């Protein structure tokens, strides 16, 4: 028995390393941002002056840019990702299922830097062409104001959307698989059309689907290279899709090695700390939802599909 214990403790030590690692990331980031936390407090997140020379740091534009680009990506990618999940798991011929899954997952295999490269040389010029051809009347709206640069929020949102689609759709597909076939069969038996049956299945799987969308959101929040290369890197709080803006991850990528002075470095690390906390919360919540979906179906109430056949 003692040897059994030795084995357990031996490999357990390696497993515990993972726990230590997560804790260490939190501790180290906090330690490295103390100067900035002490100096600015909450003001750090509410002001928008970013002036390393004067030692004034306000991170509002970065938080704004991160949330704006991620939500924009979510708005674009969610319908597409869910459409793909439904098509692959419910609609397409069995023979196409494997190849289509593989192709959509290739999108996740392309490195971020390659998306960025493509973004600089192909997407940004295309977006600029779109911007210059936008009618004047529309350009007057705050959503479309600003010079047509190509690099800006719209390009960032588009590229993030493409990058997030494979994550959301593959989780949504897994979630749809857990819907008991009886759900759909019951719907069809009541005379539901395909749309109505799938709607019932999706309603049944709603917690998991929300989890899948949140998982994509978590990915978008932390995405660095591709966004850095197309968003224009201009710290401003603007509603405009065409305006160059900045994100939390991008400012760290661009300025970390050039940060002179401890306060500057601590300010950048504090941005990293908050990014760490936000992604932690979003990912944990999303996994919680997906996990709740995977529980035995018996413990949950069946969905009423009678309305579908009314």
């Amino acid at each position, binding site marked *: 028995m003692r040897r059994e214990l030795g084995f357990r403790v031996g490999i357990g030590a390696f497993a515990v390393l*993972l*726990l230590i690692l997560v804790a260490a990331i939190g501790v180290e980031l906090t330690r490295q941002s103390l100067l900035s936390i002490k100096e600015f407090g909450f003001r750090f997140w509410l002001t928008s002056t970013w002036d390393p020379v004067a030692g004034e740091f306000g991170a509002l534009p970065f938080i704004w840019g991160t949330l704006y680009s991620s939500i924009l990506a979510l708005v674009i990618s969610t319908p597409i990702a869910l459409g*793909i999940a439904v098509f692959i798991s419910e609609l397409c011929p069995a023979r196409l299922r494997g190849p289509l899954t593989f192709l959509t997952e290739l999108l996740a295999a392309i490195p971020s*830097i390659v998306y960025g490269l*493509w973004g600089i040389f*192909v997407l940004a010029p295309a977006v600029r062409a779109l911007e210059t051809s936008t009618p004047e009347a529309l350009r007057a709206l705050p959503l479309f104001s600003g010079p047509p640069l190509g690099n800006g929020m719209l390009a960032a949102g588009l590229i993030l959307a493409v990058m997030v689609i494979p994550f959301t759709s593959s989780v949504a597909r897994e979630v749809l698989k857990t819907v008991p076939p009886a759900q759909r069969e019951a719907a069809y038996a009541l005379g539901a059309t395909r*749309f109505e049956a799938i709607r019932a299945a999706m309603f049944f799987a709603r917690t998991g689907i929300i989890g899948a969308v949140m998982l994509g959101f978590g990915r978008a929040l932390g995405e660095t290279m591709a966004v850095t290369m197309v968003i224009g890197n201009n710290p401003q709080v603007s509603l405009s899709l065409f305006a160059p803006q900045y994100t939390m*991850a991008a400012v760290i990528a661009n300025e*970390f090695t050039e940060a002179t002075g401890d306060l500057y470095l601590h300010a950048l690390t504090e941005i*990293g700390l908050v990014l760490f906390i936000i992604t932690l919360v979003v990912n944990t919540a999303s996994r919680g939802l997906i996990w709740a979906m995977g529980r035995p179906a018996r413990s949950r109430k069946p969905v009423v599909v009678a309305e579908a056949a009314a």
Partner: protein
Amino acid sequence: MTRDTMRRGISAVFVAACGAAVLVALVPLAFILVFLIKQGVQALNMDLFTHMPKPAGEPGGGMRNAFVGTLILTGLASLFAVPIGVLSGVYMSEYRGTRLAVAVRFAADTLNGVPSIVIGIFAYGIAVLPFRHFSALAGGIALGIMMIPIVARTTEELLLLVPETMREGALALGATRARAVFSVIVPAALPGIVTGVVLALARIAGETAPLLFTSFNNQFFSTNLRQPIASTTVQIFNYATSAFDDWHRQAWAAALVLVMFVFVCSLAARFVTARVQRLRG
């Protein structure tokens, strides 16, 4: 129009929209791949692998140092990430249901979701700041931290697939638990575990953000682990954001090499997994 035709109509539109969603996602994929191949093939030559970078603005040269750098960095990363990942995967599957296993699984998933740039800051704090200079070692640590959770989770999942009877057989023959795990269960899952490691390698080879302020960059050839080192991805980033056409060209070529490496890895992984599943019946 009757209510019935309306319902059928909505359904047909929905089905068409789902099909269209697949096309909408495949269009950027095709665009990226076609453009990458077109630009990359034009610029791809042996010089890229055998020559060193020329000074800024001078055409020609290659990025031998960057390819070697990426090999060193990924090698360093696997050196410590594979043992930690595999052994914690073994723990999670052997002692599944224990509180520690649940906590470790949570930690692995958390680690997997941490943005790579944040891992970079962490590695900077523990491996650059104390020594006051960027180093290949710090880059390897950053990439290794990203690799651990991927290896741990695939190992766990694949070990759980090994039939319980194999463990019982080993134990019935008088093997200790350690013996059963390392002589019977892990070997049975080995092809899958190797696949997981290959996929993790493919993923970290394409990482840029965690290297920006750990291994930094080096315009010279270096294999010194305590000095900054070049990497393919950081080099692509620097070249892409530069003003020189020839550097843009080389960035595309290097990106093509990178994507081909990643695709070959995932295809190989798919092939192995399919084979294993077929053998298991």
